[in-house]
Every structure is written in C-alpha cells, then in structure tokens.
C-alpha cells in the first residue's frame, strides 16, 4: 500500500469555479434555513401522494449510487484481489464519503419530523420488517465506515503536535491492522442498502409502472449501483488527471471499462428478460410519456455497452468519457424514473419539484464538488508521479 505515493495536489483553494459553486451553496443554505423555519411545505412540492420527492430520488438514491465508487473499487481491489487498480481507490473512496454524507444530510432535511430520527438507533423501536429502516441503519453505518476507511488519508496529514496529543499513531497502527474489517463492512453494507433501495420500490406495488416494476428490482438496483460506481471512477479520474495534469491512468481505466461493459450488459439482460417474462415489454412502444422515458433510458444504458465493446473504444479517452457520462446519465435516469417519474399514486396526485427544492439539491451537489476539490488539494488522495513532484499550482 505504502509504495503508492499519494500526495496532496496543493494549490489555491478559492479558485473561480469554487466561488461560482459557492454561490449555489449559499442559495441552497438560504432555502434550507427556510425549510427549518417554515416547514417542508414552504420550499417543497412533496405531498401525501408523493412523499418521496427530488431530495430522496436525487440526493439519496442517485447520490449514494454516485458514492458507490468506493464500494465498486473495494469489491474489485480487495475482494477480487485486483491490486493493480489500487491507485484509483482513494479518490473513489473520497467521492463515496461525500456522496453518502451529503445523502445523509439530505435525509435530515427531507424528514418531516427530523427530531425523531434518533429513535432509529433505539433497538426497542426497531421495526425489523421495514425496508426503509434497513436502508436508514445501513446507510448510517456505511457513512461511519467510509469515514473510517478514509481516515488514514486525514491522519497522514495531521500536524505532528496534534498527532502526539491524540495518540494518532496508535490509532493508525490499529486501523492498519484491522482495516480489513472495515473494508469487509464497506463491501457488505452497500450491497445491503443498494438492493434495499430497489426493495423500497417493490413495496410501492402497482403505483410503479410495470416497465420498471419487477421482482428483480433489488438486483437491478445493486447492479446499477455497481456500474455507476465504476462510471464515477472512470469520469473522475479522467477529469482530474486532465484538469491537474496528473499521470493518466489510461491503461487501468481501459481494462476497468471492460468490467463496466460486462456489468451493464448483465443489467440489460436481466431488465429486458424480466420485462419479456412479465409480458410488459409492449408498453415500451406505447408512445406515451413513460414508454418514451424507458426507451431513452435503455438507449443510454446500451450506449456505453456498445462504446466499450471494442478494444479501440476502450482505449480512446474520449469514448471512455462519453461512455461514463452515458452510463451515469442512464443510472440516474433509471433511479429518478423509478422513484418519481414512473410512479403514479392514483387519485390525481401530481408532483414536479419546486424551484427552491431543486436549488437545495443543486447546492448539495455543488458542495460535494467543492469539498472534493478541497480534499484532493489538501490531503493525499491522488497519486503523484516521480517526475512531477507537484500538481498544478494555480
């Protein structure tokens, strides 16, 4: 592990992009304050018919899938023992840390009676038959595990005085010895709650369009989370290495692309197989809103499979990037569709997120990017190269 030279990028923190993103964060903070002062109805369009709005569908369901980079890479590196991918591990973990932590924050904004949330941790209130309960506990646990997994990067950079004061070296030694436990948990927990996010939809029953509803939803959610995790790794390492002129991980990414294509093909086979078996595939060609959504989604899923099918496609940085973008768009659309757009609770309920609601979600994403940039600049996350002792200093 130690032979990989992770190093902070350094450089100015308050760059122009950060300041622009910061404005969106401030707007979001304003609406979050309104939500806590005046209640959910003041900023959100959520209703009894649509209790799961854009905060759940995007911030939690899509957000945690984006955060599955750490999960997907851990599966590859530690479980399947592909140590060559190790350099991609820390950045992936970092996106996981923020994806999940901010999803947790979004839930606290989304909960109508957030002050009761601590009851989740009271064993005597546990409702073990509830899917949402499983998701809640599991996500809480995983957020903790992610921070523990990432903590060596923070501890490496602690000033020596602090290190001595809090006995950090002992903690580091302990973590180094028992990290496998947390890595194990870090693979187990997302497998549990990402599939549970699909089980939540099983509970929706006939509210969900038959084009999305299948008994395989938990598996489909698990696979799509994995593929989105790899998608994030592809996207991030490409963007970051270009933006900060870091050594390209091209060779690694090309072989990783093969894995991605395989997983996506599996996803499509299960999805279409289930639809065929259920006899609902004809709805895709019905020409209505949901049918068209399904077609767009499927096209976006199919595109990366085709793009990454050939060695030439996998070798091209541009096509890889395009595939990753398509894949993430497909996965996000799949999740938003199945949580909001393909849901019809009946009785004439309608939902479209309000502008303040969307601004909170956008602010969250911006905050995530700002924090990501801050962390890679100040903490040893990315791999440096020998002939380039420092990243771009700007």
């Amino acid at each position, binding site marked *: 592990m130690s032979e990989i030279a992770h190093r902070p990028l350094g450089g100015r923190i308050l760059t122009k992009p950060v300041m622009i993103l910061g404005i969106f964060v401030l707007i979001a903070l304003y609406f979050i304050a309104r939500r806590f002062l005046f209640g959910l109805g003041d900023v959100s369009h959520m209703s009894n018919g649509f209790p799961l709005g854009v905060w759940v569908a995007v911030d939690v369901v899509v957000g945690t899938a984006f955060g599955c980079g750490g999960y997907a890479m851990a599966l590859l590196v530690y479980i399947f023992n592909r140590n060559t991918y190790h350099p991609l591990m820390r950045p992936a973990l970092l996106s996981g840390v923020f994806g999940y932590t901010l999803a947790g924050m979004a839930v606290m904004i989304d909960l109508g009676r957030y002050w009761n949330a601590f009851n989740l941790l009271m064993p005597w209130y546990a409702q073990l038959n509830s899917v949402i309960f499983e998701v809640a506990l599991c996500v809480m646990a995983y957020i903790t595990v992610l921070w523990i997994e990432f903590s060596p990067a923070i501890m490496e950079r602690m000033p020596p005085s602090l290190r001595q004061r809090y006995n950090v070296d002992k903690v580091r030694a302990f973590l180094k010895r028992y990290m496998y436990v947390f890595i194990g948990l870090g693979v187990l927990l997302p497998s549990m709650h990402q599939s549970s996010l699909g089980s939540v939809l099983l509970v929706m029953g006939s509210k969900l369009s038959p084009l999305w509803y299948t008994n395989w939803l938990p598996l489909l959610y698990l696979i799509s989370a994995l593929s989105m995790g790899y998608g994030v790794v592809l996207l991030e390492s490409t*963007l970051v290495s270009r933006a900060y002129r870091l050594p390209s991980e091209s060779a690694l990414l090309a072989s990783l692309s093969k894995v991605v294509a395989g997983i996506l093909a599996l996803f499509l086979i299960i999805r279409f197989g289930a639809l065929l078996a259920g006899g609902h595939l004809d709805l895709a060609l019905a020409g209505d809103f949901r049918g068209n959504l399904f077609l767009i989604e499927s096209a976006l899923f199919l595109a990366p499979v085709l793009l990454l099918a050939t060695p030439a496609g996998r070798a091209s940085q541009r096509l890889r990037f395009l595939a990753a973008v398509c894949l993430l768009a497909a996965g996000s659309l799949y999740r938003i569709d199945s949580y909001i757009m393909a849901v019809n609770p009946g009785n004439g309920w309608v939902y479209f997120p309000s502008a303040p609601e969307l601004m909170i979600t956008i602010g969250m994403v911006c905050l995530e990017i700002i924090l990501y940039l801050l962390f890679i600049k100040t903490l040893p996350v990315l791999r440096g190269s020998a002939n380039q002792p420092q990243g771009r200093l700007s």
Partner: protein
Amino acid sequence: MKSVERQDLEECLLHDLDGYQGALGGLTRREFLNYCTGVAATLGLSSTMGIRIAEAATAPVRPPVIWLSAQECTGCTESLLRAYHPSLETLILDMISLDYHEALCAGAGHQAEAYRAKSMKENWGKFILVVDGSIPTKDGGIYCMVADKPILETVREAAEGAAAIVGIGSCASWGGIPSSSPNPTDAKPVHAVLPGKTVVNIPGCPPNPYNFLATVLYLLTFGKPPELDTKNRPKFAYGRLIHENCERRPHFDAGRFALEFGDLGHRQGFCLYKIGCKGPETHANCPAIGFGDVGQGVWPIGIGHPCFGCTEEGVGFTKPVHSLAKVQTFAPPTAFPSVDATKGQGVSTAAVAVIAGAAGLAVGAGGMAMRRMDGKAESPDKSGEGS
C-alpha cells in the same frame, strides 16, 4: 386437521343418512342436513361437522334443559321465539328436552315446580342449566321470589347438578339493567353467585338467538363449551369489536360522521360515532349476522341508531347513550384533511428553468471536456462537473 376431517367423512359415510328423513319437525333429510351444516358454518367449523351435529340433535334421549328466570324481562325468550333456523319449536321439541321454562311450560304452579324437581333429580349431573336475568343478592335475595324461594337459592341448587351453565342476556352475563346504579337489589350476574363454576355468557339485550343456539348445539355436540374469552363469552360470537366489521366503518376512517339525528350525514348513512355509537368498544357479531333473518343491514347501526353497547359490561346501561365511545382500536384525528385538498403541485416555470440550466451546464461542460480529449492539447479544463 386434514386427518380429522377425513375421519369425520368416513364416519359420515358409515352413517345412515337416509334415516334423517322426517327426523326433526317434519324436515326432509335434505333440509335437515342443510340446517345442521349451516349451524356448523355459523360456528366456523368444517362442514363435515354438520353430520355430527345432526347425530347429536337426533339422539333418542334429548338432553334435558332447565331454564331459570331471575330479574329479567323475557326479552331473551322473545328473541329466541324469533329464530327461524331452527325455530324455537324445533329446538325445544326435537333437539333438547326443555323441562322447565316459566314462559314456555305447558304446566303451571306446583305441577311445573314438581316436574322441574323430578327432571333435575333424574338427570342430576347431565342437564344444561340456562339462566336469564340477574340475581338479586340484597337481603338474602328476597327481591326475586319464584315458588316461594329466592331465585338465588334455586340457581345455586340447580348449578350443583348441571353439566353446563349458560347465562343468556346481559343481565345474566354481567348484570344488565337491574345492576345499573343505584342497583337497589344488589343484582349480580350469574357467574358472580356461582363461584368456581364455568358459566358461558351470551350477553346482549336481547342476545342474538343464533349465538345462543350455536353455543347450545356446540355443547351438545362436543360436550364442552366453545372457546371462550376472558369474560367467558364464546369467541366465535364476541371475539371482535362491532367497529371492526361495521358496514359504516369506511365512513369512520374517512371522517364522515352524522352529527345529529336526521342531518345530512345521518341521511347519507355516515358513521354514528359522534352521536354516541358504542361499536368501537363493544364486542359482538351483530354486523356480521344481523337480526330477524330478513337480510343484511338489519341491526341497530344498520337502521341508523348508534349501538348502545348492550353486550359490554360498563358500556350498556352505564354510559349515556349519546356520549362518545372510547375507541379501542385507534381514535379518529380531531381534524381530517378536507376532501378537496390539493393533490400535489405541478410544474412551475422557475423549476423548469433550473432543471434546464443544470442540464445545459452539464451537457456543455461534458462537451467541452470531450472536445479536447485524445488530442495532445494539454490545456487545462475548467470543468468541475465531476460528481
């Protein structure tokens, strides 16, 4: 369970079913077996049990029944007179041997009393004792004298030799009207004056005759009382709250209440909870079987009057008729959402603008990032749209 049914079926096949022709009050074999199977269904038993009930009902020696009346109004008997499957005459002439009943005895005076004494002596330990009415206990029970004897003593004496004891009606089951405050005679239910004895209670004012008939037939068939609840009421009849099976329950859940007799809600058949219906705290099968054999909906709540809780001790004759019931399942909220509440909010221009802006930014940034890829241009990309 399956093997039991199989055994029963085999037993049935061995039995001479044609023998039932004309067995009971001139019923044909088909009518008779129909009726017995119906009784089995009322009890929630397998249909093959009908045969065993038929056997019991046609046994040559009909089980003797002694019916004692204490402080009562004969309402329970009146209710029984209005049973049609079977009718009372079928019951008392063909199924049981009703050896003593003040209202229905052919004999009178000393003759009737002598026959009761004789029957009890002959059938000591075998007869079924039915009591209606509550038992006055004040001043040695002198407030209800039958044949010069306080009914308290008569009941205690008869209970000693009874194979089973049934208390019919609310008075016998928990005290009923006579026990209501100020209770001048210190009236008590039957089980209270017979400590140590199991009294099967069939409360109701009057009780549904079929709850009584089904219990008696169960006793005859199996030789033991049906499953009872903590107040010794048969569970098949008193296991559930009226509220649970009430046909007006959907109105309760939706918050549609009659607020006074004859108002719009009352005329529409809304829930009667707010004009004092005690269905939410009263256990009985009234909504399921109705009264008078004239079809569904014929019972107090069905015809627009709130239930007054006759089967439940501490509710009927105790609570004011129009006071609110204490809801045992869950209470309705004080305010219900109005029926024309908005059903969510749709698209707003600002929201579309926000989404379009974000999507445009993402596509644009992605396009810009891609434009420079695979070329050798190493110019830094400003895009941060990574996650």
